[in-house]
């Protein structure tokens, strides 16, 4: 990752939402803009966003949801542990919306660096990262 990007990332808060017991999960973090960090207080809030039920932040801005492809291990771990669902279940929800005209699925990014780049560019974005994959220059804010 380029240095300029790391500097930009410095201004972004990485917000820890829930803690689970699995060691894999403890490395998984949901990331949002600081303005929206107080709108997710439970896993239900988080689930609502990722199943595309809650589509707007309280500010009235549309939420941009970013995920990794279905076959990505980090995606699988995120869905299971943070959303308490199975990847095939969330895929069914997204597909039904997509092919009945009732919603749109999240935007797929191909890598963590792309995820960070997208979230950095969009103040209304939400996504997730593996803490171990990201440079130390990122500041975390643990509100719990």
């Amino acid at each position, binding site marked *: 990752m380029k240095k300029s990007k790391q500097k930009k990332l410095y201004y972004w808060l990485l917000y820890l939402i829930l803690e689970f017991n699995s060691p894999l999960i403890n490395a998984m973090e949901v990331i949002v803009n600081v303005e929206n960090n107080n709108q997710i207080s439970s896993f*239900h809030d988080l689930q*609502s966003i990722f199943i595309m*039920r809650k*589509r*707007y932040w309280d500010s*009235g801005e*549309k939420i*941009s949801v970013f995920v990794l*492809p*279905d*076959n990505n291990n980090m995606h*699988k771990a995120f869905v*299971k542990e943070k959303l*308490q*669902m*199975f*990847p*095939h*279940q*969330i895929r*069914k*929800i997204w*597909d*039904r919306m*997509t*092919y*009945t*005209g*009732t*919603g*749109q*699925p999240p935007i*797929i990014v191909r890598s963590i660096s792309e995820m960070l780049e997208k979230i950095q560019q969009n103040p209304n974005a939400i996504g997730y990262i593996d803490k171990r994959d990201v440079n130390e220059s990122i500041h975390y804010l643990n509100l719990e």
Partner: protein
Amino acid sequence: MSQFITLTWNKTFYYCILITLIACSNLSFAIESEDNSVLNWDKYQQIWTDDIHFHGFISQAIFHSYGNNIWGQSKDSLSADLTEMGLNVYYQYSRDLSFAAQGLYRRAGELTGSEGEASLDYALVNYTVFRNTDTRIGIMAGKIKNPIGIYNQTRDVSFTHPMIFLPFAYFEKSRNILLSMTGGQVYAEHNTAWGDLSFSLNYGLSLDKNLALLAVIQRNPATTGEFSPKYSFGTRFKYDFNKQYIFALSYYEIDLDYESEIDNPFTGLNFSIQEFWLSLQYNAEKYSLTAEYKLGWSQLLGAKSAIPDTKNFSEFWYVQAEYRLLDNLAATLRYDQAVADVYDRTGNKIQNASGGFFPAHFMYNQDISIGLRWDINHDWMLKGEYHHLHGASDVSVFDNPNLNEIATDWGFYAMQISFSF
């Protein structure tokens, strides 16, 4: 070559629809920005990239069958006569207002012919009337897919079901009757800690292309006249706990009138169907279990002389187990059956009554099938399956025009490759 040209025309047809829709949705922004003497191109561009979304899919299947043809000339041969292709656009204008449309191209054996059929699958405006944290009530207007059972809304999208072939309850002959309605939908959703409740009520006109149904009634693939839809309705109540336990009840009542330019023995015929569905699904990490039960009542009334007034009571059910051998590889086993008349389950009554003219096997069907679904990656999927069938109630008369040659015991192998974006 002529086939290629027709395909191109069909494609052109639905690209036109999509372009028109996109143009319309952008137009509203152009009008809004008239206040500012300079168009806000950044905003315009952002709407294009952030708010308008395109998705699509294409599936191509091949079959080899014995006994009867299944979609094309597959008997003791190889047929590639099932192609499904869709392209959709979705535009979220505001928190409460969205627009969506999908164009569908479908080639399904002799019914659609080798050139296939292009159609507007859905085109709707969705407006949320009331919203709070846990509840949403809204209305949709336009052409809307009917939420019936588990698979009906997305029946043509292979990605949304485990096998290429849907159970008999969804089969081809009733496809057009139950697919969608042009009219409106009222819906309500309520989310609780112990699950989500949803309710929908659809009202409108069903599709007017009902050749498959007409062919069954006239017992002739060379149909005359057509069915014209009358206002009909349908409703579904669904309970869903985290997509783990799904329970749904659906009820649909569809009315059609027979119309023909030339007076014939079918003149005056009215066809109506009522369907009641019970749907259950359990999803675990490694496996999914699905079962659906459908009762159908149909009436054929008022034909001049071709057929006497007839009432019919049919029954369909299946059980399906899907096991995920790997995250992207699932095996499915299904038992499925159809009974065209519950008072004549074996078809013997009608066979005897018609003096052997109407074979008993047209009154029932049973299918044991096994399939594999491999999600190669996010975009590509491959399915393969084998079906063994007993009975012929779902054999297409378009693909098997010689009714005397239709076999009671038959089967087929199928493979399908699908791509989505």
